[in-house]
């Protein structure tokens, strides 16, 4: 199935961690977007020594395609175990594509309070943005055809890997 070689997710995560180390202080709040973003945020949280526990968001209740495709089947609970008000936040996602998930995540975050700032960390930026959204921290830029998608997977021992999917449409 994979027609091209994808970068190694663990190496990208290491690069992402180094980019963030200089400017993401221990007082920041780290929030992963379900599901891949939560795995990444947990790893970044440990590596960067962030004080507050890791947050997680499931943006299903804020998606702009609800009218078209309905509610997602497997909605997870969002959990922000720290005060958002006045805090510098970093949203973490595995693949940055149209930007619509990030738009939904920001809308949801503001229902918890008014953060001092929000930055975005993405393991892979695959282009194709439909909204004026950019990531401040990026593991790698990967060119993909519109019918292709990448998914982050996690093995039982916790090792992360990228998988390429081809759709026929």
């Amino acid at each position, binding site marked *: 199935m994979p027609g091209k070689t994808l970068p190694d997710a663990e190496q990208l995560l290491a690069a992402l961690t180094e980019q963030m180390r200089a400017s993401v202080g221990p007082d920041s709040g780290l929030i992963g977007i379900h599901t891949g973003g939560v795995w990444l945020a947990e790893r970044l949280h440990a590596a960067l020594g962030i004080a507050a526990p890791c947050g997680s968001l499931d943006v299903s209740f804020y998606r702009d395609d609800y009218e078209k495709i309905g509610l997602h089947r497997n*909605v997870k609970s969002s959990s922000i175990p720290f005060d958002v008000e006045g805090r510098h936040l970093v949203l973490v996602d595995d693949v940055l594509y149209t930007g619509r998930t990030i738009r939904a995540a920001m809308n949801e975050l503001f229902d918890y309070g008014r953060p001092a700032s929000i930055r975005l960390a993405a393991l892979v930026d695959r282009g194709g943005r439909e909204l004026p959204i950019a990531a401040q921290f990026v593991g790698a830029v990967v060119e993909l055809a519109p019918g292709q998608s990448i998914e982050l997977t996690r093995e039982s021992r916790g090792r992360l890997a990228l998988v390429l999917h081809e759709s026929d449409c």
Partner: protein
Amino acid sequence: MWLNPANPQLNRNGELHHLLTIEGLPAEILWQILDTAQSFVGVTQREVKKVPLLRGKAVFNLFFEPSTRTRTTFEIAAKRLSADVINLAINISSQTKGETVLDTVANLSAMQADMFVVRHAASGAPYLIARHVAPDIHVINAGDGRHAHPTQGLLDMFTIRHYKKEFSGLRVAIVGDVLHSRVARSQIHALATLGCPEIRVIGPKTLLPSHVENLGVHVYHDMRQGLKDVDVVMMLRLQNERMEGPLLPSAQEFYKYYGLTEEKLAAARPDAIVLHPGPMNRGVEIDSSVADGAQSVILPQVTFGIAIRMAVMSILAGN
């Protein structure tokens, strides 16, 4: 909109289009509702208790029979989904002027309704409405006659799962006026679908439906035997109009034999929980010391009811 003739709640893809009864719904839809409600519990604990899913939608609460708790929790649920809510207590408006149910619904549909939440004293009224509304309108049964009260059954399941985690090892007793209870029917169907291995009903012969055992339940007429070693006690409301009818000698006598007191509850497991759909008749079906006691989860039921109704509305409106 094509709806399954055998189960007119489901659309072509087997998804929920209306919620009319729990009977006949596949377990996966019940689990989906319970899991989605779990996520909404988190929303209702936030600073801003609203999500934008139903923004711009109009939800009509159509109550042909009085209700405070159910109507209010549907209203809160719809508002937390950002819908506009219109409450209609129809027993005191057009029905007294002679308008039929379908004319009422047709008029409200002309006001761009997206969803009807219906309570009616006649069993089957929500089905009638669901058959006649436009294909993009969703209908939720908020209690019809003696037939069904699916969101109450679902919030009871949510409450049981919250405290007991699994249904697979549970013994559950449903106590009181099963004969007239739409809640009991919804509970029995939900428990059976979710895999509860032992469902008991306890009540006097005059208040149990004949052949109730055909629903797969065990029948008891004695509280101490029926409650022995159960994990969950689900009390039913004894409706005032029954207390003076020929089915019961008196409310006092009912309390003596079937009222849940601490002494009778002692037959259940020590960690058993007690549910009641409300409104309670203290000193008739339940003693105050139990209703307000450590094993009572009656107020959490009300809170969970909002999350369940948010889940049902958001799943329906998206299908």
